[in-house]
């Protein structure tokens, strides 16, 4: 039985997998039709006909993950690491009968590589679905507070 705590735990667990670089386990959290979306506009509605920083299906996420470990992936020599500092997720919907589970989580994200350290702030919105006993990500939407700023490389996942 999915409840508010299950949803919150899922979101903490997701961040932990990213912070500990367990990429495969992280990919396994996605529904086969899942998407990862980083909009480029304030309260953006359309990921397809409006520009985004990322809008990736599972195939593209797998490419990213596989690339991180590649022998000739020079932008990962040295490797990046990341850290998520999450506020308690705000449960937007927890409707087991309708199968709708949504949460919004405010966070600070740090990505570091070599001597560099970059910090980003934003909100992650999770649309989850129940598959068997567990939850899967249908959509993870990442809204940066300064989505319109000119960033350097962002190589991992927020």
């Amino acid at each position, binding site marked *: 039985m999915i409840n508010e705590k299950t949803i919150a735990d899922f979101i903490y667990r997701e961040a932990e997998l990213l912070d500990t670089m367990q990429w495969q386990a992280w990919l396994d959290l996605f529904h086969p039709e899942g998407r990862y979306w980083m909009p480029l506009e304030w309260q953006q509605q359309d990921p397809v006909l409006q*520009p985004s920083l990322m809008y990736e299906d599972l195939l593209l996420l797998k490419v990213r993950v596989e*690339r991180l470990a*590649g022998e000739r992936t020079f*932008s990962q020599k040295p490797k990046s690491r990341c850290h998520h500092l999450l506020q308690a997720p705000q449960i937007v919907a927890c409707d087991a009968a309708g199968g709708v589970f949504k949460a919004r989580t405010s966070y600070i994200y740090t990505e570091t590589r070599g001597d560099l350290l970059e910090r980003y702030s934003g909100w992650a919105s999770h649309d989850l679905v129940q598959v068997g006993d567990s939850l899967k990500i249908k959509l993870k939407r990442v809204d940066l507070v300064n989505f319109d700023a000119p960033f350097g*490389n962002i190589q991992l996942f927020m």
Partner: protein
Amino acid sequence: MAKYGNNARAIERLVRDAEVHRDVYVDQEIFELEMEHLFPNSWIYVGHASQLSKPGDFITANIGRQPVMASRHTDGSIHVFYNRCPHKGVKIASEPCGNTGKFFRCPYHAWSFKTDGSLLAIPLKKGYEGTGFTDTQANEGLSKVKNVVIYRDFIFARLSDSGVSFEDYFGESLSTIDNMVDRSPEGKLAIEAAPIRYMHTCNWKMLVENQTDTCHPMVAHESSAGTAVKVWKREQGDSTETPMAVQLYGPFMSPYEFYEQSGIRIWPNGHGHTGVANSIHSNYSDIDGYLGQMVAAYGEKRAHEILGEVRHNTVYFPNIMVKGAVQIVRNFIPIAVDKTLVESWVYRLVGAPDKLYERALMYNRFINAPTSIVGHDDLEMYERAQEGLKSNGNQWVNLRRLYESNEEQDVTAVINGTSERQMRNQFHAWAKFMTMDMDKHVEAAE
């Protein structure tokens, strides 16, 4: 310790036939001189008329270090000014774009200006009576950029009063812009969204050069495009249709022979493009209904001619790259000697199916975004170059690939697609536009 200022000969010595000195990328004084000479002497892209659709619409930009703005006046004309109040210098507009209504009003003391830049009103006007104000430059309002040309809705400006005319500067190279515009069944492009912005800690010229560097994709992008191809092969199962994403990544892995045969065309003044015979954009799948629209608009023969032209990257010297086949313009905006802001704009082909816009937006985030894995590959190399060039072991950058000793300058030619000639072409133009007004400066100082 001015080494290069007012010293045209010293600057010219940085560019040899097929080598350039590392100071062009790492020397602070050279960067300042580029801002002072190269950018004002060149025709610089300011924006697109579709960003100024209604009277009162404005956009802001920089030419070199100088803030400018363009606006649509009540009579429909477009004007470019310096973005600076004639009173005490406050920037009139600080947003990238907006609509000012009937007039611009300075936020400091409320001097106001018509949308053609002329002075409209000053509060307490009486205070200026008898002061000689009408004889000052301020009385003329916002300072105009005099040399402005709008070519098929692309707004270009040259800050220097003298120099090469727009026609002589671009010449035949404008055919890439023509092709991009002609790809709309209505012959019109529109900018509908903000650009993707990406900060590069490297010199701006590294980016410009990379646009026609065809010997790096199969090496540097093995990590991104190569992995994409590999993962797709493994995961595709029974699917026969290649997803749009894989169509966009895949061709980056084309072998050297592909790039050799696709060719490079160079033009005078540093312009040039890859993808003469074919390009990595050649084999994208058709978009339903588009060809029909093009045939209806242009006729069978012309429509095929337009769509058959699939140039890859066209460099408009000094700092934009136009990619007609996916409707993208990248603007390499110099911030410091080792810092460049890249703005990548997507244009919608007016009247064409949404799918084309979708593909252009996808290409832009796949290749040109701070979250792009292809971008990560490239930026890593630029940053390493910016670091490596500090080495005293060798102070020259080698651009000798397919160099011929009798190579002519400022000509039009089609050459082997893996040649470094377009880079040599750019550096010839670089030295020319850097120094073209320098002797005059010496005279003025004497």
